[in-house]
């Protein structure tokens, strides 16, 4: 089966590297990373990934422009929003889903937890 293509949109270069490494370990192919909303929309258009992991901090919460651009391209695009755990983002979540997010995951995603989970998976 062809590896699933993933686009990571995150303002932090550390997170981009960590997530790329983690997803590569799982056999998912990170085809591109992007540091801001505009780049996310551009990279989506270029690479047509199966999944977009998008950090809320670069998701342009006023209008979700990048998500809307992707949704215009492909209404069924699997955009999963990564949101800060400590912030109350309840109002934003609803707007995000209306704008095309197909789900959310809360941050932080810690390197040690990721390592442990991947380790568990790969030891089997």
């Amino acid at each position: 089966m062809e590896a699933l293509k993933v686009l990571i949109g995150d303002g932090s270069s550390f997170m981009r590297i960590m997530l790329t490494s983690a997803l590569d370990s799982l056999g998912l192919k990170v085809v591109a990373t992007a540091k801001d909303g505009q780049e996310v929309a551009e990279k989506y258009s270029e690479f047509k990934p199966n999944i977009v992991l998008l950090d809320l901090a670069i998701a342009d919460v006023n209008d979700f422009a990048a998500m809307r651009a992707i949704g215009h391209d492909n209404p069924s695009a699997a955009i999963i929003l990564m949101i800060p755990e400590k912030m109350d983002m309840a109002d934003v979540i609803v707007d995000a889903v209306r704008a095309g997010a197909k789900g959310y995951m809360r941050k932080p995603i810690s390197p040690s937890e990721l390592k442990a989970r991947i380790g568990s998976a790969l030891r089997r």
Partner: protein
Amino acid sequence: MAKEKELNILLVEDTEEHALLIKRALEDGMLKPRLFWVHDGEEALDFLYHRADYADEREYPRPDVILLDLRLPGISGVEVLEQIKKEEKLKDIPVTVLTVSDEDEDILRCYQAGARGHVLKSAALADRASAQGILDAIVLLG
């Protein structure tokens, strides 16, 4: 040689078709977790509290991740989630809610009740490849 710690997932899903798609996707993926499937909220709580058929803690271990359908017969998914988050021994287990609903109120309730993640089944189960990728990602990252 004894296996090292496995990734244990509790799937709470009353729709057999969805449960089988999720099971197949997780088996296809890289994580290859040990999956425990229960059909409703009451059975989920029995599993988590080691009651009834789930009394054996070694056979039915504390899950590392819970995938929870929102619309369940009897005790709802949100009620199960709220119960998990109230319980000191269970509250740290990450729960990702799977739902067919994109209704604002459902999503808000999951979020406010402490779900670690929420995924629309329409995206997660769109096709075999997407199901595998999204489920691996949410189990790993969620």
